Every structure is written in structure tokens, then in C-alpha cells.
């Protein structure tokens, strides 16, 4: 498994079906696993990656600029979120440059 670092390029797994149902972002992974994200920042990152692949650094900057959170908290939360999403095969890490 790739280690996540600031220059890791993150993209969505485009085989995942998704829909916004009221305030819930619901994701359906090809093996029928269903995920529901009620966290607005998680939903924002999912949307941001719709047609883009972005570095972890870029994702953090986006959250820092748009939400009231410190840089440290932001890095911690976004990293954790991305790791969970990669674990569930909802995000893909394209490569990592050290």
C-alpha cells in the first residue's frame, strides 16, 4: 500500500456510484459496500475530486481556505479522511513522490 504524503496525487475511484440524498452523500462501491458521508468537509473533498486528481497538499489548502480550522488540525483530519477513503477503495493514490 502506498504511503500517503503531501505530494501524493489523490483521485476518486470512478467505479464508485454516488448520489446526494438530502444531506447524505451516499457512495456505492462496486462490491456492494455502501458508505454514507454526513460530514460536509468529506462531501466537499469528494466533489472537489470529481474531474481532478489533486495532491494531499492541495486538498488541505482547500479545506484551510474554506473552513475554520488550523493548518495542523486540517492536515491531520484530511490525512485521516483520505486514508480511510483509500482503505475503502473509494479514493486512489496515483503516486507518491518523496
Amino acid at each position, binding site marked *: 500500500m502506498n504511503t500517503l504524503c503531501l505530494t501524493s496525487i489523490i483521485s476518486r475511484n470512478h467505479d464508485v*456510484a*454516488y*448520489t*446526494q*440524498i*438530502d*444531506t*447524505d452523500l*451516499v457512495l*456505492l462501491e*462496486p*462490491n*456492494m459496500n*455502501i458508505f*454514507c458521508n*454526513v460530514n460536509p468537509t468529506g462531501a466537499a473533498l469528494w466533489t472537489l475530486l470529481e474531474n481532478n486528481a489533486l495532491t494531499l497538499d492541495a486538498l488541505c489548502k482547500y479545506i484551510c481556505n474554506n473552513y475554520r480550522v488550523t493548518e495542523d488540525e486540517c492536515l491531520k483530519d484530511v490525512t485521516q479522511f483520505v486514508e480511510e477513503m483509500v482503505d475503502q477503495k473509494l479514493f486512489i493514490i496515483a503516486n507518491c513522490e518523496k
Partner: protein
Amino acid sequence: MSSKIMYNYRAFDLLIQSELPFRELLPTSPIGSDVNPIIIGFNSVSPYGLVGSLSLNTPSYQATSDELWLHIPDVARFLIMNGNQIYIDPLPKADEDSIRLFVLGSCMGALLMQRQLLLLHGNAIKIGAQCISFIGNSGSGKSTLSGAFFKRGYSILADDICVINNEGEVLPSFPQIKLWADVAKKLMINTQTLKKIRPDVDKFALPLKQQFHSKATQLRIVYLLETHHQKEISITTLTGMEKLHALQHHVYRKMYLSNQARKHLCFKQCMQLASIIEFVRIRRPIDGFTLDAIINKIKLDLMKRGFTENALTQ
């Protein structure tokens, strides 16, 4: 050259050509845009089931990706293929009413699922320019509500199988609702001139005639019918995942979803539908309630959601 008479009907936005006549269905003439009709005919169907790799295998039904085999004791074996053919192999004690019942229910349901449509186990009633659907377990009151709305002059698109296309429209089924004898009595509908749906079952087929709405209509609200031990009728809006779980739970003949791909598609369709419709749970007392009370609660709810008095006055 075949000398079989084929009867032409239209249902679920499809042209159906059948060797067996169906008084339940709307007769039609084929039109220019009709391609590839659904064919219903008599043919031998193996008593042993399907050949090939089975994704479903039980004594009463088997499936591969394109075929469903059904064995209904004392009625028939059926084979539903490729979303466009139904073979009927009647069993010795079969009566025609029962054969037609299963063709229009389970077989047609399986065929429509092979055509990748979303099917809910429920009805669809036209309100204004849109429609609403009541879903729920057996005994929850769906047919009673079909009958009640019919009696109050509303038009109906579907009674048992509610078929929804990718645009979120309900496709019109056929002009009949089925009513239990006691429900018909409660609704003051005379069953003396009605035919039973099957010889030994106290359920009657009520033709809808002018109250059948034969155009695809946008589905606006799904009402989930449940019972509870309280004395009041409660109405709750469901949102997000709750909506999705409830829809998915009430898919028609879910067990016919023969493989992972079909289950995945069905779930995706439920997700898409959940994102565009409103979803309301109605819990009624098991006993001691009036049909009028439920209908009034539903009408109030519809008005709260923007349906006008005009749409609700029939």
C-alpha cells in the same frame, strides 16, 4: 406459416404479443415506433430448470444472467428470457385465471427487471400532474388505498408492480386493481359483477376503465405504510439513508436479482430515486382506525407538500 392468433396489448410502455388472451390488459394496434414486442406464448419448459451456470438455484426459481425459470405448483412452469419473452408450460391442474395472474405478476416483474427497470412493490396514484406511490409489506394496506383513491375518483397507474424509469417516471401498468372481498365491502364496491383473480381466493379484479392513467408520470412522493400499537396515525418524513434503506427493502421480487451486477444496478437506481423523491412513513393503528382518517391525513400531507386543492379534489 403459423396459424396462432396473437393478441396485441400495451402495458408498461411496451407492446405485448400474446397467444393467451388477457382481459386485464389494454388491447392495442402495433404502431410505427414499436420495435421488438414482448412475446408471451405456450412452450415446453424443462421440469429440471435451466442449463448452464446458475446464479440463483432454488426448487421454485432458478436464474442465469438472462433467464429466469419459475415453477408454480399446480399452475405452470414459466421461462422468462432476455427481457422480451415469456414461455408458459401449464401443469395438469392449472386454471387460466391463475396462469394469467402469475404472468402479469412474477413473470412480468422478472421480465421488466431483465430490462433493467426499477420495480417497487406498491401502487401509483395520479395526483395533479405527478403521482404518488404507497409501498409496504403485505397487509399494510396498499390495495385498500388503491381502492379508496379509486372510489374517490382518482386515476391509477399501477396497483401491485410500480415500474420506474431512469427519469423517475412511473410507467403505466394495466387498468386493474385487486381488492379483497372485505375491503371491497368496506369501500362499498359491489363485487357481484367482478371476477375473482383465482378460483379459491377471495380477491376480486376491478377494472379501472377511465380511471386508468396510461401515460408515464413523474413520481413525487413515496409513502411507506406500516402499522403500530399506538392509537394515532403518525406521519414522518424520512431523509437520506433512511429513505434509501426503505426503498431498497421494498423492491419487487428482490430475490430475482440474479447476480451482483443486477443487485448493484438496482441499488444504484434506488439511490437515484431517493435523491429526487420525497419519502414519508405512515404508521397506522393495527385496529380501530377509519380509512377516511388515513385518507384525510394523506391529503393534508399532500397539501403541505404543495399539492393544490384542485389537484386533490376529484
